[in-house]
């Protein structure tokens, strides 16, 4: 990455499969022209030729380099265009960028993961990593919240996780929608009333919409997590990915380069982080 062509170089990828995860969320399975390596929690910029670019954290396993999966919620102009992609469509990848999850710090720990909505995408990649490390991790507890049962994504993943001896999952939907749901109702933060981890040896990971991240983080602090043991995935308007264009500045930090994963301790002095 030492010349400008390298800095903005696109790796083309072909869409193989489009998976409907929920009414607004799709996962795109793609094959890059060359094997693509990333660390869990790092992000990529995906380009639709001539139309625009947006940042996404891969939802697939970093141990798989010949395929890349990205889960996208239809929520704006460019994400709507992504949702129109069909198998065979070609898009561009730049990256990977930023600082992902410091999984080496998770060794010997109990890992409490709090996810909301499409924020489960980066977490799924992290979970694939933790599965590979399952003998080094004491325990993994996943708490996931979606607006309704229908909005819950990666449904088949939960039973697979629960089949691993030291993994547990708990889900909550904000509101019922008439579909079958054996899990609880209410905001995901309610699941934190019983965190199910040994607080003296646990770290927490939070990823989701800003409002959910704010209240989940405050709750984690309240129940006794140390600020430096809470890992937040801050998704801002990352554009260049190089710490230069300024669009993702969060105080003195460039989220694209210094993050997107920060400890709460690193960023709590800035009251603007939840905006």
């Amino acid at each position, binding site marked *: *990455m030492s010349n400008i062509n390298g*800095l903005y170089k696109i790796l083309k990828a072909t869409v193989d499969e489009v998976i409907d995860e929920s009414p607004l969320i799709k996962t795109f399975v793609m094959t890059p022209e060359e094997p693509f390596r990333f660390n869990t929690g790092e992000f990529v910029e995906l380009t639709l*030729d*001539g139309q625009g670019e947006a940042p996404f954290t891969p939802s697939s396993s970093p141990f798989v380099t010949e395929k890349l999966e990205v889960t996208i919620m239809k929520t704006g102009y460019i994400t709507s265009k992504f949702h129109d992609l069909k198998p065979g469509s070609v898009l561009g990848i730049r990256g990977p960028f930023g600082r992902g999850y410091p999984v080496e710090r998770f060794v010997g720990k109990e890992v409490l993961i709090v996810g909301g909505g499409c924020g489960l995408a980066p977490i799924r990649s992290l979970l694939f990593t933790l599965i590979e490390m399952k003998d080094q991790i004491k325990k993994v507890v996943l708490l996931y919240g979606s607006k309704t049962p229908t909005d819950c994504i990666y449904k088949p993943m939960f039973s697979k996780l629960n089949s691993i001896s030291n993994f547990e999952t708990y889900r909550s939907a904000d509101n019922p929608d008439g579909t079958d749901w054996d899990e609880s109702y209410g905001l995901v933060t309610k699941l934190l009333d019983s965190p199910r981890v040994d607080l003296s040896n646990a770290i927490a990971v939070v990823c989701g*919409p800003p409002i959910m991240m704010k209240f989940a983080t405050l709750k984690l602090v309240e129940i006794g997590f140390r600020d430096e043991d809470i890992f937040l995935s801050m998704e801002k*308007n990352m*554009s260049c990915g190089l710490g230069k*264009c*300024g669009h993702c500045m969060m105080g003195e930090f460039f989220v694209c380069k210094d993050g997107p994963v920060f400890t709460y301790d690193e960023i709590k002095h800035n009251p603007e982080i939840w905006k």
Partner: protein
Amino acid sequence: MNRVIKINREEWNKLLIQLSDSGERIYAPVRKNGSFDYEQVARDNADGIVYNEAKPSSPLKIFFLPLRLNVTSGGRQSGRTVVVGAPACDIEGLKLLDAMYIDEKYIDETYVSRRENTIIIGAACHKTSDSCHCTAYGLNPWPGEGCDISMSRAGEDILLESLSVKGEAFMTEISGITGTEEAASGDILLIEKLRAAAAKEVAKRNNGLPGTAETGKLTAAAAPEFWKKHSSKCVSCGACSAICPTCTCFLLIDRPGFEKIKQQDTCQYPAFERVAGGEDPLKELSVRFHNRYMCKYVWKPERFHVLACTGCGRCSDGCIAGIDKNRVIREMV
């Protein structure tokens, strides 16, 4: 003072034209319709070159960060550029640009090649403008480092002081082309006097203006109402950023064929930080306005340990709403 040579102004102008005719990119501030800005030196404009006056309308950054650049096909710049007459405030601003564009991880070769291929001939400001306030931020209105040559006009002579190896080589090169002589002690005394007078003038005008660290503290502490009041006339035109020597934000525009165009942008434009789904930390005008002050006086200095406002005053000169940055800052005190 380092080695100083002297050259007659007419001979110097001829030399610039000669270099320009030979295909080099030679730029100098040229007066036109009451203001002056960088132009490529040619036979028909060399007489209008402005010496030692603050300050060209455009900041020095325009030579290193073009307004618009195709970053997919754009590569290293070749050939030499000579920028004559850059003020010290702009030269200081390059420290932040260097920190951002030649960082440890992602080196922007287009920027690097432009920096390497450019000889910067800085100019001491003998005549300053009402908005100049470099001295409030610990700078002098003459170049001391960060450029290759410091230039001063003394009567009909141009004095050139070497400040770098590149500058020394350029001075040797021009001495081989045209008549130069070593400056006499009287010449040096004269330019030192002119410099001191300019510094005194700027300092007097900015008496009581807090330094950057103090401004940072005040900026962080001022209430939202303060920013609402002072931003009320702002029309988000972005002129303050466009002409700021240290504003570097840009937009990436996609073109067919996976081409990317890098274009100057600013946090003062609506939707600068907006994400999919509509969340926008800088949605409110007053928050955007405050953001720029925070960036200049708190975040960038904290992050890069350099000045992010070098006191050029262009943001106040160029504001169509008449917002005077220093008046805003004085009201915080």
